[in-house]
């Protein structure tokens, strides 16, 4: 109960400060509209914003699912195969020195203005944190558990599945929590570079037409989506860890 109350209180303080800033500094609405104007814009464009939010949400969820799946699979392959560790791991780390955002125009060029260039962008952003966190967890299984499993006659596959993977779930969960924060960034960057829909696209469009209130309304919805996603993934991770712990 304390959490939501605190959240509401913080939100109320934020809205008050926002309104005070607009009123006291006499900021024109095309630079910073007040909270009331933004809510009005949100209300009168609910269908439009909802439609674009649906696109962004689809991109984020698809990217999150694919990126988490690929990242987890990579971690397992690396954990199982010393050859893969030797060959792939340096390459994996090297790719992280490249700002993934720089790839957005190329992705748009290759995959067009539809959702797939954004899904791939999201996958690229979250793949590494998930793979890296899960891999670390898989490699840090307490050695005693593995010794015990070996004396019991476990095959490497069963050691992995029954001991290493469950033991690494908390690490995977921290990777996924990070991924939930990064995923909307990937999708919105992709939309800014070139899109025919989505909240990032809508914000650019509104900006170009000086519909600043609509831009802020879209931003508000984006923030709400990101927060919900963060909470949702956090909740799922908590459930997963509680089952294990």
């Amino acid at each position, binding site marked *: 109960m304390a959490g939501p109350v605190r959240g509401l209180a913080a939100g109320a303080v934020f809205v008050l400060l926002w309104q005070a800033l607009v009123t006291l500094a006499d900021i024109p609405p095309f630079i910073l509209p007040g909270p009331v104007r933004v809510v009005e814009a949100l209300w009168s464009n609910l269908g439009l914003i909802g439609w674009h939010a649906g696109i962004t949400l689809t991109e984020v969820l698809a990217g999150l699912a694919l990126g988490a799946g690929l990242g987890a699979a990579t971690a397992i392959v690396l954990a199982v195969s010393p050859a893969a560790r030797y060959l792939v791991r340096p390459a994996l780390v090297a790719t992280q020195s490249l700002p993934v955002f720089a790839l957005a125009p190329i992705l748009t060029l290759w995959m067009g203005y539809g959702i797939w260039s954004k899904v791939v962008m999201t996958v690229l952003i979250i793949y590494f944190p998930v793979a890296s966190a899960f891999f670390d967890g898989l490699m840090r299984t*307490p050695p*005693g*558990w593995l*010794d*015990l*499993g*070996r*004396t*019991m*006659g*476990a*095959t490497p596959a*069963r*050691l992995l599945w*029954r*001991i290493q993977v*469950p*033991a690494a779930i908390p690490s995977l969960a921290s990777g996924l929590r990070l991924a939930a924060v990064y995923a909307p960034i990937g999708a919105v960057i992709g939309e800014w570079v070139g899109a025919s829909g989505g909240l990032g696209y809508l914000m650019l469009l509104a900006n170009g037409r000086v519909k600043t209130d609509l831009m802020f309304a879209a931003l508000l919805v984006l923030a709400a989506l990101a927060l919900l996603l963060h909470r949702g993934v956090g909740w799922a991770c908590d459930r997963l860890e509680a*089952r*294990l*712990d």
Partner: protein
Amino acid sequence: MTPAPGITLVGGASFGAAPLFPPVHLEIDAGSWSCLLGPSGCGKTTILRLIAGLETGVDFDGQVRASDGRPIAGRVAYMAQTDLLLPWLDVLGNVTLGARLRGQVPETEAATELVARLGLAAHAHKRPGQLSGGQRQRVALARTLMEDRPIVLLDEPFSALDARTRAEMQDLAAETLEGRTVLLVTHDPGEAARLGDRVFLMGAKGMVEAVPPALPAIRPAADPETLAFQGRLLAALREPA
């Protein structure tokens, strides 16, 4: 359980150029308790791991043989200083871990009986986090017994327990592991004096055997001969290397 074999380990071990222990000759009798006593870092755990077929990270020059000439791998149950319970499995899940790891159907009924025999019936569905240190080590013993292996390797399994729980666990282990070939690695002279049918002392110079009292193990801790033997073991441990 198949008949318990004796085990012979002959050889020395080193880390590259640095010797860990000089060539030793360890004879573990079939179906009885042998205690390997020594200070930390003398290589006694390495000897246990060599017998268990586990990774040791040392160069071992020698061999490990079972008296019946068959391989030791697959006939060993292992119990360590920490209970090694998996926190995400309940007591029964941990006791039947071996079957799961071998892809067999866990014998839940047998495991339930065993858990009850070790006084854990009320805890069968609890996770390790809800148990005390002594209870957890009982679960580890149940898991070891569930494996039903003729050779049991114990690496200081009671050293983290308080004196009373330790004595209880020693009694319980002696009773339940009867008839198996047991190697107990320990740094506690009292434990070796109580439990060892044979006692081997390990130090930097190598391994020597200390002859325990005629009274069969498990000996009462207050038995004068056992206490005197414990004193001799401690004195031998304290001799400068």
